[in-house]
């Protein structure tokens, strides 16, 4: 069992977490004016780096969405940080 650090709940079992995607892949700015290539990349493509990566995960029981840095070969977790904003935009 891998243990992942939820920024809100602390260390919990891997079965409670859901992988959402790679970090630093922002939604294309400009909505409908963004190009087909930008939307295709955003929706489907990934870098798929091997080794130390930054990813977006969610913790199902509390709903926290956060950024986690880990190694996808050794499974060492380096950091996790909440993506919550201090106040609603």
């Amino acid at each position, binding site marked *: 069992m891998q243990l992942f650090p939820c920024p809100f709940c602390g260390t919990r079992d891997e079965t409670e977490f859901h992988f959402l995607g790679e970090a630093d892949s922002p939604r294309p700015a400009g909505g409908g004016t963004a190009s087909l290539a930008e939307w295709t990349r955003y*929706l489907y493509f990934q*870098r798929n780096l091997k080794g130390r990566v930054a990813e977006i995960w969610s913790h199902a029981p509390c709903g926290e969405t956060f950024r986690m840095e880990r190694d996808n070969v050794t499974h060492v977790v380096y950091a996790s940080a909440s993506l919550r904003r201090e106040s609603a935009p």
Partner: protein
Amino acid sequence: MSKRYSALSLAVEGLRGHTGWAPVWRHPRPQPAYDAVIIGGGGHGLATAYYLAKLHGIRRVAVLEKGWLGSGNTGRNTTVVRSNYFYPESVALYDLALRLYEGLSHDLNYNIMLSQRGIINVAHSDAEMEICARLANAMQINGVDAELFGPEQVRGVAPAMNFDPRSRYPVFGGVWHKRGGTARHDGVAWGYARAADALGVDIIQNCTVEDFLIEGGVCKGVITAAGTIRAERVGLAAASHSATLAAKAGFELPTRIYTLQAMVSEPVKPALDTVVLTLGTGTYVSQSDKGEFVFGGGLDRITSFAQRGNSPVHESVVAGLLDAFPGLGQLKLMRQWAGIVDVVPDSSPLIGPSPVPGLFLNCGWGTGGFKAIPAGGWLLAHLIAKGEHHPISRPFDLDRFARGALIDEAAGSGIAH
């Protein structure tokens, strides 16, 4: 050069104490240039080289494998072959594979131990039976054998299953696919390797591709630990490592890298002569010729390049097996292992030109690459030789994501791939 295998050659060698067998492929040093280089010495890469040499007359071909032949997913799967898919595009692809498998032992002069023992997808509710009827109808319309079974017919092909109506996943029936079955996974890799080598293909093991040779935006070869190898056409058939190699060539792939586990029990006497998949748990199982129960289930949903798998999925797969076959509860697990699979959002493979001219793709098979080996190799060979798609591979081009023309088999046939 290896000799032709036959009942006579086996008998003669038996009388001679098996002293006359020779290695069945060479261990050449890489040449500085080839007509085509294939990255990945698994089933797909070796099959590609074989069909390039046999069907297209391109014999100056090298297969580069970073480990040993079949050491990736080709040697890690549960050996099931089948073509029970939903969409016409998928059926054309996977049934090509199954038809090639059906003649492969003769074609390669190598026994791949194909056993068309049939596969049953078991349903546990009226709603799942309706999905099964939909799948069986689609398969029949597309020309693939399929039969909708009731519970008594399931009992007929898998009597060791749990038929207690009070069980968590009771047997309501299922889809029977008679031409499905198993094949010897190592044998497929070795058979293709031996046949390709006999046609002049250089199979180079322990040769890691580190980068691509790109000149003027065109792929002109590969850079390996053993030096630069030039080739006008390069095929990429490296499963999950296709994505990491694509990054070196400057493009991304629409894949997610997950771990898929499998395991075997200790060997026992024959008790199951078909392949069983239960839709409720996703566990699938067959019994090998040695008597081991070979089984697996769903993916570890943690993106990973580690080839080992983790305990939560391991436990759920074993629980799924014991729900369907409570009588196996006394067996010991002998081995557990995992492969890393590249899963595409629509659970269909990526076959076609890459964004870099001269570099062609055959990857993204996810959890279902073994059953597709002959078709993947056949189609990539066609692409490399002709420079364009065969009609069967065209729908699986990388351009389907921008076009929105996905082939969503996970939704279509309801099977994890």
